[in-house]
């Protein structure tokens, strides 16, 4: 199946997308070890689950439009937000940027032909796919859809009769997939850089994937073992978290957050990488503070592993732990601030164009700042006590996850997909969709923070009437956001299928992926490239 140079030249300008370069039909995709095809597989599956998650979000908002039971009862609502959370976290945002865009561009950006372990890469996708199907299967089998929330807190998750075991197992598989992706990326970055591609010439996206991959490798196993224990608790009654039998339910929370806090940096670091790559290109200026951005990513990954306790300030954990974890949480905010300042400084005296990728990247900076700053309220022990487990937290994490990583995901789509499909979308419609989303987003989630400040707990399908107005506004915001999303996807889809040819370098980028044709050929580079300048050396690349 290895394409000979011969078949390649015939495949012409469709590059790796040409059906002739792979096995026929679907098999050419689901059994392909080409990193670009795997990347697109991830892109399709991740986007599909994003849409599922979004529809669930819409239902959640509809239920919350008024107090009392509006469209669904308590049990259905509990299943809705559990699924919404599980789908968004484990099926969309964690595999999202690394799985789709990491796979698509990482090897090309470092001048390699593929990742270090292509078959392992395919296995990652398969684990993800099987895990995702099992997660969906948990809806329709056993004792009904799981109702624990995405956090699976014991003792409830051990006692409930719903189908938690299958969901937990599914998440376990997906975690394994995430580990394999991380392992693959680290090895690729260490071993397969093209001649001349020193560490200082790595695009910042690669740096971010590198720090992410370490978190994936070192934190995910803890989630794995925790979920195994929950399964054993349910199936065999080992009692390791059962207070009546000498266990401690708070230990579950420690183990869960030892993974899940670092996981929020798995979600956001690649997004920061995307933004760090886009801003210089659209400003025609080298990334300001290259090393500061690169190392602050590593610092976030490292320090992010020390702060998990900030999810547990009210859990009954010792006050000493509250002190330590609160302090460290504030420390981890500093490298994020450094990044923000460097991004803004990159704009200074540039030649800025507000094409859709840039628009989404700058939106990332703003929304991430809003979300991150609200994280400071949560990191401060005294204030967190009030807003913990209220809609303030829900607002915080939608700002950083959707406003942060989600926007970066859209930025990456608008930035790199023309490269991989060879076609350009309509930029004006994309800008219009952006405007709708920006407005809808803030209406939706800022009101959530307000209602949280007033004390509305999360995971409530029914609430006291004083929270009504804000919830109503929030729901209306979700419609505006949804409309924007719809337009965005339709426009992208139409453009990538039928748009104008994009050419190899539509944005004037200086990193390696812009030196190959769009779409790239199967083996990326006919012969290993020699790298002679950095990823943002626009002058040396002849862009300026």
């Amino acid at each position, binding site marked *: 199946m290895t394409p000979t140079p011969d078949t390649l030249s015939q495949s012409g300008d469709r590059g790796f997308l040409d059906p002739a370069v792979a096995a026929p039909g679907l098999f050419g995709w689901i059994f392909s070890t080409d990193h670009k095809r795997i990347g697109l597989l991830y892109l399709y599956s991740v986007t599909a689950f994003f849409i599922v998650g979004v529809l669930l979000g819409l239902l959640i908002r509809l239920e919350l439009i008024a107090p009392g039971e509006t469209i669904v009862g308590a049990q259905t609502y509990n299943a809705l937000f559990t699924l919404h959370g599980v789908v968004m976290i484990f099926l969309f945002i964690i595999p999202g940027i690394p799985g789709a865009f990491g796979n698509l561009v990482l090897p090309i950006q470092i001048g390699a032909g593929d990742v270090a372990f292509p078959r392992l890469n395919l296995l990652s996708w398969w684990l993800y796919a099987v895990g995702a199907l099992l997660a969906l299967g948990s809806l329709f089998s056993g004792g009904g859809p799981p109702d624990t929330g995405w956090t699976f807190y014991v003792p409830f998750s051990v006692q409930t009769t719903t189908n938690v075991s299958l969901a937990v197992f599914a998440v376990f598989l997906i975690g394994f997939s995430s580990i394999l992706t991380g392992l693959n990326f680290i090895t690729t970055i260490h071993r397969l850089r*093209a001649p001349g591609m020193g560490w200082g010439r790595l695009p910042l996206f690669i740096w971010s994937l590198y720090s992410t991959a370490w978190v994936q490798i070192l934190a995910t196993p803890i989630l794995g073992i925790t979920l195994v224990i929950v399964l054993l608790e349910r199936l065999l009654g080992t009692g390791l978290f059962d207070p009546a039998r000498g266990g401690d339910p708070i230990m579950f929370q420690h183990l869960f957050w030892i993974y899940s806090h670092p996981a929020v940096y798995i979600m956001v670091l690649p997004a920061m990488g995307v933004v760090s790559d886009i801003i210089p290109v659209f400003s025609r200026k080298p990334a300001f503070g290259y090393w500061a951005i690169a190392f602050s990513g590593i610092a976030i990954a490292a320090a992010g592993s020390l702060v998990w306790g900030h999810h547990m300030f009210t859990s009954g954990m*010792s006050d000493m732990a509250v002190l330590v974890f609160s302090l460290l949480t504030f420390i981890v905010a500093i490298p994020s601030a450094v990044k923000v300042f460097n991004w803004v400084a990159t704009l200074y005296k540039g030649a800025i164009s507000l094409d859709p990728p840039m628009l989404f990247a700058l939106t990332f900076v703003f929304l991430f700042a809003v979300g991150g700053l609200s994280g400071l309220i949560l990191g401060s022990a005294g204030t967190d006590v009030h807003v913990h487990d209220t809609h303030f937290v829900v607002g915080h994490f939608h700002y950083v996850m959707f406003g942060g990583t989600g926007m970066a995901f859209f930025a990456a789509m608008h930035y790199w997909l023309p490269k991989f499909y060879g076609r350009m979308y309509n930029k004006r419609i994309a800008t219009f969709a952006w405007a709708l989303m920006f407005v809808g987003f803030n209406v939706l989630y800022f009101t959530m923070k307000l209602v949280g400040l007033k004390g509305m707990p999360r995971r409530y399908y029914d609430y006291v009437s004083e929270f009504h107005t804000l919830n109503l506004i929030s729901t209306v915001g979700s419609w505006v956001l949804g409309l924007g999303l719809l337009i965005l996807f339709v426009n992208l889809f139409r453009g990538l299928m039928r748009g104008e040819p994009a050419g190899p370098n539509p944005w004037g980028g200086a990193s390696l992926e812009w030196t190959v044709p769009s779409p790239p050929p199967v083996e990326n580079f006919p012969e290993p490239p020699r790298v002679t300048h950095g990823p943002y050396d626009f002058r040396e690349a002849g862009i300026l």
Partner: protein
Amino acid sequence: MPHPETPHIVGYGTFIAVWVLLLALTAGTVAVSKIELGVLHVWAALAIASVKSALVIAFFMHMKYETRLFRVCLFATLATLAIFIGFTFFDVLYR
């Protein structure tokens, strides 16, 4: 770019010597466990186990002959695990 490498072949004698040492240390831990040491005991057992695992890693697993990158990564991993355990005790010890 990776270069074709010539493997470092470890002699049989080295491995056997390490194995003898490991067995001796095993006998050592069992012996120590018979002495009354109180809480120190756990630390003594862990210390011996660490020496044993260092031997396994260095020789059986060829760590001694790998590049420095391998050792740095291993260290990072062990440090991470140590931190996970250590920081949990900020809660457990003070609750």
